[in-house]
């Protein structure tokens, strides 16, 4: 007899093409494509639209063919402003997250690699920083300094450093005594060379996923700071500030003023979080 399964011819599974190009792989991920779209809108959208500060004929006009998202209390076109604001929000989010990575990752790797008192000290400091609610800590620092965009970026980056520090530390720690690292050490390579060449590449996936989450988080913090009035101020186009501007009109029927910038935050943050999930569960 032969072991035929229900008489079906089995599909021969092809060996996975492991070395498919990374770019091609990313394009097959839906969230990544959406993110690309959002970035493209932020980069090129403003060229096709007018001045975000230009005043129109009507204040608080409902969404229409002229004003897709309506106009605000100053008669500015909300659609134009939402698109323009994408630049600022994405830029601040990206730079703040990048600064946090640049500071946190090497520190975390070094902490894991060096161990001892250095490790303990860094860990305790970041634990203390993480005990603060992110937003309140940012608020506290903003009150002590005068809020400007570079200051905001620095603050958002600072409150995110411990996240990377601990993440990298926990990812690097099991690798420190891995055979290939010991081998490199025996070969007489320096600490930093070993970290850069052998350890960090092994944790990059975790960090990339976290980076995407953190850009999202930075955008949320920026929007929240602007919403409570200590971040970016109107009329500069920024999503959180725009939601704040429309908040009072929300309950009186002019819902579009706050709705659309809020949706923009939601869509961007959701996409960035999905991208992180795709990085984690993919490959």
């Amino acid at each position, binding site marked *: *007899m*032969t*072991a*035929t*399964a*229900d008489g*079906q*011819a*089995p*599909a*021969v*599974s092809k060996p996975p093409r492991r070395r498919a190009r990374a770019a091609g792989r990313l394009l097959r991920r839906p969230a990544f494509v959406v993110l690309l779209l959002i970035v493209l809108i932020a980069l090129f959208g403003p060229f096709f639209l007018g001045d975000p500060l230009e005043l129109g004929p009507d204040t608080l006009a409902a969404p229409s063919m002229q004003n897709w998202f309506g106009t605000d209390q100053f008669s500015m076109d909300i659609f134009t402003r939402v698109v323009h604001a994408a630049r600022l929000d994405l830029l601040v989010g990206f730079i703040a997250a990048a600064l946090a990575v640049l500071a946190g990752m090497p520190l975390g790797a070094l902490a894991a690699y060096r161990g001892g008192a250095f490790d303990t000290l860094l860990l305790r400091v970041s634990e203390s920083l993480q005990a603060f609610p992110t937003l309140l800590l940012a608020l506290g620092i903003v009150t002590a300094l005068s809020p400007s965009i570079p200051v905001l970026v620095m603050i958002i980056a600072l409150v995110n450093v411990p996240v990377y520090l601990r993440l990298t530390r926990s990812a690097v720690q099991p690798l420190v005594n891995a055979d290939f690292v010991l081998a490199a050490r025996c070969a007489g390579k320096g600490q930093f060379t070993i970290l850069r060449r052998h350890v960090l590449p092994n944790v990059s996936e975790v960090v990339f996923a976290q980076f995407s989450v953190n850009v999202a988080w930075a955008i949320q913090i920026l929007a929240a700071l602007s919403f409570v009035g200590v971040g970016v101020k109107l009329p500069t186009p920024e999503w959180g500030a725009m939601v704040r501007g429309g908040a009072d009109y929300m309950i009186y029927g002019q819902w579009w003023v706050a709705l659309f910038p809020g949706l923009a935050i939601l869509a961007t943050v959701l996409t960035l979080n999905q991208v992180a999930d795709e990085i984690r569960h993919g490959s």
Partner: protein
Amino acid sequence: MNAGGGMDGIDRGPGAGEIPLLTVEDLTVGFGGGEDGGMSIPLQGVSLRVPRATRMSLVGESGSGKSLTASAVLGLLPEGARVLRGSIRLEGEELIGADERRMRRLRGGRIAIMFQNPRASLNPVHTVGGQIAEVIRVHSGAGRRESRNRAVDLLDQMGIPDARRRASDYVHQYSGGMAQRAVLAMALSCRPDLLIADEPTTGLDATLQQQVLDLVIEQVKARGASLLLITHDIAIARQTCEQIAVMYAGRVMESGPTEEVTAAAANPYTAALLKAFVTVDRGRMYAIPGTVPTLSGPLAECPFADRCEMVGPECRERVPELRRIGGREVACVKA
């Protein structure tokens, strides 16, 4: 011709003439095979008979389908797997397609299993005694106190000192050997007719291995139960079981009385396994060249052909079926 070949009523040694305790016939299990098509068939027509009060070992390399066979018997196939064909009978009662309530009563009641890694097999947040008592309560309907006392007795019988006190301990307070004794107590708590032991000594110290094996044999014998010992180690099989079945690539290659099979293997695969074991004993390593084939579909030739020293053109023509030769059954065209 049926691969099991068990329907023709010829005398076949122990347990012959009566219905065996467990009969597995032509068991074929597939994974996947949904819309995306890619189906693998890790069990390709397994046939086994475990008579009453008999110890049988199921031997094979990892990936040969031993553990999956045990899961199928318990009706607990992993997610995505399903029985494509075949029959599993417990004293004549068909288990494939049996309803879940019936299966649940059999599990732990008439067929019990103990896994490797005993400390992970016990729940960390309940006491060891409490877990054994729950199994007793579920199957016998005994009260809390009654089942608790029986659990303590069982732990005592398994040689756990100060059983009454240790019954209130948690698994993290047990050593590996003690935990395996407790797992055995739990498996035997409802006097099963068949105990499946899936690599019960893997992960234990060498000295403990022997103790645990001796205890399993002793307890199974004392209760008149059958044992299906799943192991990759043919030495353990030889030493503990009267019957042996050698599995390879989702099929039984050879089965029969242990002495007969190990004295002169009729299947080159069995011979290779024995050779690997014997040479290890003499301090040298012999490894069977090649690896177990991945079973992405039905085979058209002997699964061992690529690794076999005696391979000939006839081996490539079809899949050899189990044939009866003396007291044993062999799947090899050359036997």
